[in-house]
């Protein structure tokens, strides 16, 4: 695999939909399953080849399998069947503020998040100032993150993810939280990373953002890829699927 390359082959993955994912030994030994809806097929035989440097937007209605696709590409969730291969370092920005220790300062969380992605202390220290500057947190970088607003959360989260030298950037609908100026800055940073050879996979309901950022669109519906092609055609397909006309 070349760094930045992504291959999904006949990828399938189902999730049990229950309030409490943990089972008890008693339930297992008695062979009883918790009651609940049938498992949801989040990915249903999806095949996808993405070359290094491509920018791919994934769209689809709620529950179409967009986030599951990102979680599979990030290596966080395994497939039930099929194959996934991602070349190089994949960095995912999935949940707002996920993995932040709330009682720790922004600076300490930069350390932990860098370490989570397999960076060494020297590598993280070398880019801490760039991350702090990008996040525009100023002196708040040394305050516990529990005092942060949601905008500050997303700024720090994005700043960290954008400075991990990712070969593959996986971003899920989190940019919308920042203000317009910060969103623009994020898009510029993403463009820089792409120019440096990184691959982008972006999940968003923001059609304009996808059209601005991505050259290729994949439309998911019911866990299956129903369209894969140039972004303009893809968004047209998506709007017809949703029964909406979007005036830009």
């Amino acid at each position, binding site marked *: 695999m070349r760094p930045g390359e992504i291959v999904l082959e006949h990828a399938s993955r189902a999730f049990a939909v229950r309030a409490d994912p943990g089972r008890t030994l008693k339930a297992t030994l008695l062979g009883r399953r918790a009651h609940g809806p049938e498992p949801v097929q989040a990915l249903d035989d999806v095949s996808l080849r993405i070359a290094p440097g491509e920018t791919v937007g994934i769209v689809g209605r709620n529950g179409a399998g967009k986030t599951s696709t990102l979680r599979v590409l990030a290596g966080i969730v395994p497939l039930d069947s099929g194959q996934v291969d991602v070349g190089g370092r994949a960095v995912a920005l999935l949940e707002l503020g*996920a993995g932040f220790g709330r009682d720790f300062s922004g600076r300490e969380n930069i350390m932990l998040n860098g370490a989570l992605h397999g960076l060494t202390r020297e590598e993280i220290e070398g880019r801490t100032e760039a991350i702090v500057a990008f996040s525009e947190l100023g002196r708040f970088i040394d305050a516990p993150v529990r005092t942060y607003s949601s905008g500050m959360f997303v700024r720090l989260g994005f700043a960290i993810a954008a400075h991990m030298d990712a070969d593959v950037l996986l971003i899920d609908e989190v940019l919308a939280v920042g203000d317009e100026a910060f969103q623009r800055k994020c898009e510029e940073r993403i463009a820089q990373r792409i120019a440096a050879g990184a691959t982008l996979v972006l999940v968003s309901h923001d059609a304009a953002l996808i059209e601005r950022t991505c050259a290729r669109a994949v439309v998911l519906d019911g866990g299956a890829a129903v369209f894969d092609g140039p972004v303009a055609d893809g968004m047209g397909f998506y709007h017809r699927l949703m029964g909406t006309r979007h005036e830009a």
Partner: protein
Amino acid sequence: MAGVAELLRYRFLFEQMVRRELRQKYQGSLLGLAWYVVNPLVLMGAYYLVFAVALRPGFHHPAYPLFLLVGLTIWIFFSQSLLAASTSLLDQGALIRKARFPRELIPAATVTVQLVTFLVVLVLVAVLTVAVRGTLDAPLVLAPVLLAALAAFVVGLALMVSVLHAYFRDVGPILAAALVPWFFVSPIFFAPADVVHHAWARDALTWVNPVAPFITATRDVLYGGVWPSATTVAYVVIAAAVALAAGLALFRRMAAELAVVV
């Protein structure tokens, strides 16, 4: 599957996890580390009162408080590590859902935090015991080997209980309940050799409980100033290797779905 190279790549993550937990553990607790010295001392006082003063058993160990203290320190490390490990993966669910990294690091970091406290307390206990008992002798060279084996043994069991508890939420409570009788059959306030009338009970207390040889061997070295039997040392080393290998095997078999279940 995490190979050695991948674990090495994530050694800074491991360090970060240990630091964070250490800080969280001691932050906001008035006594801090002192609590971990006070706890075994209070237990020791209570057991001394019950077993040496009230019950007056048929066996006698000189400087009995020190005899108790060595066993108690090991037991507290063993039991606290497993209890903390059982919920460790759920506690760190946010990290598991965020990135791909060797999940083994989480219970291993939890045990390491307990190990740091344990070593501080054990050094104090060991210095006191060796000074009072005059056991500054050749068998002490075995102490590092025994402690390394104990740490490996506990990490192995911690891997098992942590991943089992993530899937089956009654593993933690079952463990907590099991630790109470387990404490009483462990040779903490007695030595298995004290049981003179029932050979089968002595053998069971010596060999069936895998914690017993660790306590017996360490106490031989620190408190007795004698070499533990070769069988005991072999048992300890093999138990550590088996627990670690089985723990890793079970953990890696079950770890894939962790981001979904925690």
